[in-house]
């Protein structure tokens, strides 16, 4: 099957590696700020609930994995 919009002009986007590193660093700063706010709420108002501890561990573990993959993707880019 032919592309329905094949007659449109082709365009390309130039993405530099350093720009992607800056995006990652800025994103990490935002993430760290929100994480600090969340963890503050969980510890101050969570009444030491077991579910809060599980949530905190899950949040941080998955975040580390996702950041690790993003970091890896940038190194091989």
């Amino acid at each position, binding site marked *: 099957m032919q*592309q*329905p*919009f*094949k007659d*449109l*002009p*082709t*365009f*390309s*986007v*130039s*993405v*530099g*590696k350093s720009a*992607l590193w800056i*995006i*990652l660093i800025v*994103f990490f700063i935002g*993430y760290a700020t*929100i*994480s600090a*706010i*969340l963890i503050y*709420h*969980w510890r*101050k*108002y*969570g*009444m030491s609930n077991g*579910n*809060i501890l599980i*949530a905190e561990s899950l*949040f941080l573990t*998955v*975040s580390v994995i*996702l*950041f690790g*993959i*993003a970091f890896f*993707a*940038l190194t*091989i*880019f």
Partner: protein
Amino acid sequence: MLHLDPGEKIVHEVRKHWFVFFAYGFFLGIAAILPPILFEVFIYLVPFRLPTEGSIGALGMFAYMIWLLTIWIAFFVQWTNYYLDVWHVTQKRIIDVEQKSLFHREISTIRFDKIQDITVEVRGFLATFLDIGDIRVQTASENSKDFFMRSASRPEQVRRIVFAQHNWESERSRPVRVVDKDGDGYADQPGNTETEK
């Protein structure tokens, strides 16, 4: 942070039903898997070349991880608002913590002796099936507002627990008459009562 009286313990916690949060989580789940699908459709429909340097796969993976992290944060912000919006039922009172947003909390308490009535309303098939309902605790005081929680989990059980605590507290603080045994006539006077505590 909640401050309980010495010896006061939380006997029950009341939250909105998990299904209320599940609806939001489901929406985020859809949002998480949508970008790869949309990207495939987009590059099929529109002639698009990406990028001029580096690997397209690595760039796509990087962008997708950033997207997933954004959704992950949004999920936990919403979960925090859901989980910290709670009623703590203690032996003496109900503490209502209304978590409206991350930086907006309201905490109010009502002692059991100020409770006038508790109304539970379960509407609809799904609410009946999942045991979801609205709970309203009416207060006897004119100064304090009623406590209300929409879509609470197991509302009938909450009502039973609150009434049980209310009855226990009433029994505990019921006035008793002290009978004069030594004949000095003091304790027999009307109004000379003590309260068991």
